């Protein structure tokens, strides 16, 4: 490696970046993988958003026939599945990948090739799921896939096979990434970066990986059982065969509720980075922020059955899960108050990331409070499975996660791509998104309480749902438009190339100490950390802003080699699951044998790939 760097070093002695197509296939650089995650996830986000817009257009007026009931069911199933597994999770993964090594002062993640493998398997899973549209067999049983509607008897097509298998593929990606980032954060921190000095985003990432590692095995088991029911005729969830439909609900929500925190904890982390920088003041109550995050994650495993109050579990179970759910409001409240405490007494810099971060707080309060209303189990019997709950979780996942991820995008864009996004367009994006979001989702509280159930492809006139539904659709169109503004901003800024300095926001953390975008090796010299807000400390010691760091030669810095094998192994995984779909065909065993061969061949080469190129 060292010699090849010297051989290829340019006149200035600076290692030239490889940028060809193959460099993206074979990359093991966490930053490139982060960008791959971000780009793929954003495209999936747009697909999921389009699905949502069609849903809203269908519900714009009563007894509408824009789409068939069958296609509507596919749309809302794929909207939920896409937004959770293919948009919000991988958008968070974009920031884990790009930012975590930078935030903790590392050169890369612990397992760079495993990192590439995670991405390619994620992409394979996303493509596999969406390819179902080509066969007119997109999943149609809801993102929650409740038994026994998901059984072969009541869902005879390939639709739910695509779902059960697609989610297993995505689960492999999430678990591999979970191990990787957990180990990275524990083992790869720069000298002096004690756990209790880590940026809160690194903390929330660490906790999120723990949630992934503990909850994804549960859904994997449930999906395997479902797949066995559907492909091989077992009866785990088939009542006539002695199976139990409640078993699915418990397994699903033991995963499903921690999943909610997998979606929101990274957002908490981003907000905890953005607010101090744009208030010019450290995070208020750092320790409380870290421990409340841990507490939320821990309690998150003890509240799953609040998704099941309407099943009639009995008064004791209902009470326990209601009280546990209410308990979560306490650490969440601590977080909200501490964020406000961070801004209090600060000197607020109203830049685009700050708009989104403050918008996040305002919207998340709303989602949190409707969540507390759900915890009152008997009242929840009215709210659950109605549009009230649709409003609630969109306030948490859109008003929460998406607002925070957008804040993160505007905040870290200069670092990731080396140029600034336009502030005016950014603020326009914010206001359109805030207005569109509230017009779409606030009225859902009301129609929900008035009795409009969710997952219905239409509703009759005369029940009083018409005008609010029309309003919601207008809101959704504004919301969709706001992302066109974002895309325009990205294109315009990329073209105009307003070069970003290394530290455009007076950042508190280590990523702002290095050039934008960072060089392949991140840090020419691994920094030594002396306290929290490491870069602020450094600047304080220096007596003001740092001079622009030069781009330097990476000669002599050991970096992992590019590799084809993570990509090939991911192809093997995809082929294996496709073969499973065809297992009962004439060449079924042959397909499976071929796929396993590709997978094992790739893993074999991966294992014995020389460390030095």
């Amino acid at each position: 490696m060292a010699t090849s760097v010297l051989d290829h070093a340019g006149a200035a002695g600076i290692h030239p970046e490889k940028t060809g197509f193959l460099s993206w296939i074979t990359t093991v650089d966490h930053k490139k993988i982060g960008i791959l995650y971000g780009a793929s996830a954003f495209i999936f986000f747009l697909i999921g958003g389009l699905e949502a817009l069609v849903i809203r257009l269908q519900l714009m007026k009563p007894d509408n026939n824009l789409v068939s009931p069958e296609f509507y069911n596919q749309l809302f199933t794929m909207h939920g599945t896409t937004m959770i597994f293919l948009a919000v999770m991988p958008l968070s993964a974009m920031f884990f990948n790009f930012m975590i090594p930078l935030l903790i002062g590392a050169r890369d993640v612990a397992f760079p090739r495993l990192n590439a493998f995670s991405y390619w398997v994620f992409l394979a899973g996303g493509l596999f799921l969406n390819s179902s549209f080509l066969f007119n067999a997109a999943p149609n049983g809801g993102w929650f896939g409740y038994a026994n509607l998901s059984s072969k008897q009541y869902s005879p097509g390939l639709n739910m096979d695509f779902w059960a298998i697609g989610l297993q593929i995505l689960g492999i990606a999430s678990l591999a990434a979970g191990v990787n980032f957990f180990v990275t954060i524990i083992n790869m921190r720069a000298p002096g970066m004690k756990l209790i000095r880590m940026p809160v985003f690194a903390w929330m990432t660490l906790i999120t990986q723990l949630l992934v590692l503990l909850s994804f095995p549960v859904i994997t088991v449930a999906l395997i059982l479902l797949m066995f029911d559907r492909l091989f005729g077992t009866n785990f969830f088939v009542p006539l065969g002695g199976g139990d439909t409640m078993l699915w609900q418990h397994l699903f929500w033991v995963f499903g509720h921690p999943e909610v925190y997998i979606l929101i904890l990274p957002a908490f982390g981003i907000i905890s980075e953005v607010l101090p920088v744009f208030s010019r003041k450290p995070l208020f109550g750092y320790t409380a922020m870290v421990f409340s995050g841990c507490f939320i994650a821990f309690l998150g495993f003890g509240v799953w059955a609040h998704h099941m109050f309407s099943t009639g579990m009995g008064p004791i179970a209902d009470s326990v899960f209601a009280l546990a759910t209410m308990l979560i409001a306490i650490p969440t409240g601590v977080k909200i108050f501490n964020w406000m405490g961070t801004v209090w007494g600060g000197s607020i810099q109203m830049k685009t990331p700050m708009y989104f971060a403050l918008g996040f707080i305002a919207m998340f309060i709303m989602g949190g409070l409707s969540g507390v209303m759900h915890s009152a189990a008997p009242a929840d019997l009215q709210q659950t499975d109605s549009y009230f709950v649709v409003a609630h979780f969109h306030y948490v996942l859109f008003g929460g996660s998406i607002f925070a991820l957008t804040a993160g995008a505007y905040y870290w864009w200069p670092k990731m791509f080396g140029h600034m996004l336009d502030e005016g367009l950014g603020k326009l994006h914010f206001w359109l998104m805030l207005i569109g979001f509230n017009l779409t989702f606030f009225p859902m509280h009301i129609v929900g309480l008035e009795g409009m159930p969710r997952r219905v492809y239409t509703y009759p006139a005369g029940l009083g749902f018409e005008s609010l539904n029309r309003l919601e659709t207008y809101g959704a169109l504004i919301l969709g438009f706001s992302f066109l503004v974002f895309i325009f901003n990205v294109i315009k800024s990329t073209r105009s190339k307003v070069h970003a300095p290394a530290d455009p926001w007076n950042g508190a953390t280590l990523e702002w100490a290095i050039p934008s975008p960072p060089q392949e090796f991140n840090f020419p010299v691994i920094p030594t950390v002396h306290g929290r807000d490491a870069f602020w400390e450094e600047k304080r010691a220096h007596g003001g802003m740092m001079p622009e760091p030069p781009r330097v030669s990476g000669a002599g810095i050991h970096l992992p080699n590019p590799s084809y094998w993570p990509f090939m192994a991911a192809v093997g995984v995809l082929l294996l699951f496709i073969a499973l779909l065809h297992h009962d065909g004439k060449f079924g065993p042959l397909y499976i044998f071929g796929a396993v061969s590709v997978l094992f061949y790739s893993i074999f080469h991966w294992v014995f790939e020389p460390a030095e190129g």
Partner: protein
Amino acid sequence: MVDKLFRTTLFWATLVFVLTESALVFIIVKFRGKPGDPEPKQVHGNTMVEVIWTAIPALVLAMIAVPTVRTIFRTYEIPTGADVLQVEVIGHQWWWEFRYPQLGLTTANELHVPVGRTVALKMITQDVLHSFWIPQLAGKRDVFPNRSTTLWFKAEEAGDYPGQCAEFCGIQHGRMAFQVIAQTTDEFAGYVSRMEATGAVSPAAPAAPPADSTAAKPAAAAPALTTTTLAATAPAAPDTAAGAQLFMMKGCIGCHSLNATKPMGIGPNLAGIGQRLYIAAGWLKNTDANLANWIQHPQTVKHGVLMPDLGVTPAEAQSLVVYLRQH
């Protein structure tokens, strides 16, 4: 009771919402930085303040927690006693079957109950999970294939209460509605006796067309009709006797009973269909035109239902409508 709990939670949620959002707006306005401002005081936290804003939410939650648990236990007390009207609910893709075990009656998609009397439901499903929900009368209760669940309610005022399946149950989940019709005791008694009367004109004995008794008024020629003349005359003049014949010939009888006292057939019991407010599980108004359309084109009107398109002609549908209006 549940209403009171809802209002309690709504009150606290609104209060906290207003206070925190106002505080947020205040902070944003008050601490807005201006260019050239010095670095603000670097505060890292304040234990006292943090303890306070941990304790206050805990207290608010306690205000919600106590009535929540109390209400949970109360809602699970299933009322018993002779005065309670027992109803068995059976969920189907995509309609609701109601049975009154105390009265020996079966009906579908329209549940008549007396005002002021507690109704206790025992629910199960014939196929996939459903959820029974009458928003104005009670919360949801899911319906399972392998175990029964319970729910109870009491309608305090006479009126029609729309209900709807609330658990996604397949292609026509959106069209799985029903009506609860709360009536005075006298009206309910009248309903019960009308339903009991459908047992007397039982289509369980198809050899004797029920048209004989009921169709006497509108159709004078009815008794003399044979199957062959029926085909010729039906298009000209839709009538009850023709409808009665078609009800059997077209196979309607295979799935639908017109006898409320005998729960049979895999389709909705049609006793009393003539007076129902809605058809096709609560979404089409029960007009002659809608009913005729529904009979002719079930797969267009509500794609995916078990009822197949049977090739009923418009004229035949008219006769069936006339016939069904008698029931």
